[in-house]
């Protein structure tokens, strides 16, 4: 395959900036052939726009600050706390180079990259082609377990990047019961071309007895994330995000 693509999100607020690090790599070619990185952003107040970065080479890691590639993000950033959709694609014209082994890391950092905590994560890799997507199966994907935690260090939320043209219904529910009394269930709509972050509300944890750990009390609950099936997932990904409960800075992002 001569291209590989990830779907992620970019934060560009007064507290957080985004860097994209990429590693075009091929098992089949050792020479440092030229490759390209293609970045696309979308979101409220921003026209869907693509920037092509030249100069990347196979087997050589590299990176870019998203606001350097898209300076317009800074003018609308603070009004969009969940951030912008971000597609990252690596390409090469070398027919023998299979970029399937390439890597990408997204970094959320303070604007000055001062001594604050850095959050880095592996973004969701997109299917390589329509042909790889299943064509049958249930309309709703099997739910995926999420570890929702709340303590002195983190508060948990679910972030959905919807790069599609249609709205998508998403939800989380507690595992004890699907419809029984006391079951927690929350749902929201991921609007097309938007990044939607849904913080797990405090009442989901209320009934739980906190566990005593070395660093203090922690409340944890297993939730099931409900989203449309794989069949429809092209352009739709979800992440678990843990933010510091007071500063709201992201501490952990994990692709689902």
């Amino acid at each position, binding site marked *: 395959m001569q291209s590989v693509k990830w779907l992620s999100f970019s934060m560009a607020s007064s507290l957080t900036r985004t860097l994209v690090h990429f590693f075009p790599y091929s098992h089949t070619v050792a020479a440092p052939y030229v490759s390209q990185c293609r970045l696309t952003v979308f979101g409220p107040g921003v026209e869907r726009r693509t920037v092509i970065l030249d100069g990347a080479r196979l087997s050589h*890691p590299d990176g870019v600050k998203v606001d350097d590639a898209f300076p317009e993000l800074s003018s609308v950033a603070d009004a969009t706390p969940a951030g912008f959709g971000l597609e990252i694609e690596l390409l090469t014209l070398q027919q023998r180079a299979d970029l399937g082994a390439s890597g990408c890391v997204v970094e959320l950092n303070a604007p000055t990259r001062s001594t604050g905590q850095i959050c880095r994560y592996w973004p969701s890799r997109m299917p390589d082609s329509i042909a790889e997507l299943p064509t049958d199966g249930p309309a709703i994907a099997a*739910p995926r377990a999420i570890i929702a935690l709340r303590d002195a260090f983190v508060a948990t939320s679910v972030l959905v990047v919807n790069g599609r043209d249609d709205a998508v219904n998403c939800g989380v529910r507690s595992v*004890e019961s699907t419809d029984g009394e006391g079951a927690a269930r929350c749902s929201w709509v991921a609007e097309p071309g938007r990044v939607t972050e849904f913080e797990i509300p405090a009442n989901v944890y209320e009934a739980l007895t906190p566990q005593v750990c070395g*660093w203090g009390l*922690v409340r944890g609950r*297993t939730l099931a994330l409900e989203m449309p099936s794989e069949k429809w997932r092209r352009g739709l990904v979800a992440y678990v995000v843990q933010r510091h409960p007071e500063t709201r800075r992201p501490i952990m*992002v994990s692709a689902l």
Partner: protein
Amino acid sequence: MLSAGPREERHYWISTYPFFETTLFLSSPLGGPVGEVAHCQLYDADGNSINEMQVATTLGGVSVLELDQFLAACKMESGLKYAHMVLRLPAGVEEQVRVHTRVGASVVGPTVRIIDRGATFFPIDARHERSHFVALVNYSLQPALVKLRLYLGRRSPEEMVTIPPLGARFVRVETVFGDCFAAELVGPSETLAEGEVPPLKSAANDPALQGYVRVSAKSEVAVGVQLFERTLVRGLNDAVEGELFTAVS
């Protein structure tokens, strides 16, 4: 009750004294039977089995396991207690590994698996408030060989590392590639007196401070890789209050 369903295996590099405390969180299985058991096996740096635990998941809850208590038998290697943790999870069970210090917490993703000619990479922020170490675990019963290459400025020095079967290693990037850091982070016009320690630049936003570590498998056995970044946290009067450790999740 043991699960008859498929089990997923994850490999982590974990540590305790004097770096941080490590905690394992396990979700309950979705739709699975109550009491599914997750297996956790710990090997020391040389690959000796030091502990084995079974954790019964609870319906709807999150199982919390503070791992320091299980690392008592872990031998010190390079002044550090660290281990290779192999998790075998029932189908549908998710895990989260979190490290804590006095001033903060962060989540550590599983090691990235590379094999044969495979490679992976990690960004580093080469400021003097930060330091980095590459954490390696060997999934197999054969010794594994990996090559680390640092990309910093115009230099890209290399280092080979051998990992014992089932064992673990950690490599301090600023120590192994000390010459490169000194040469790249001290300006060409600056000269050092003999024996003087190079003052690392701390200018924020200096692109020269962005570096990368590439890790390549050089043997035909699977190896797991993670990179930890250690950041000094300063408070009033610039006094060091503590340190944070972060990894790619």
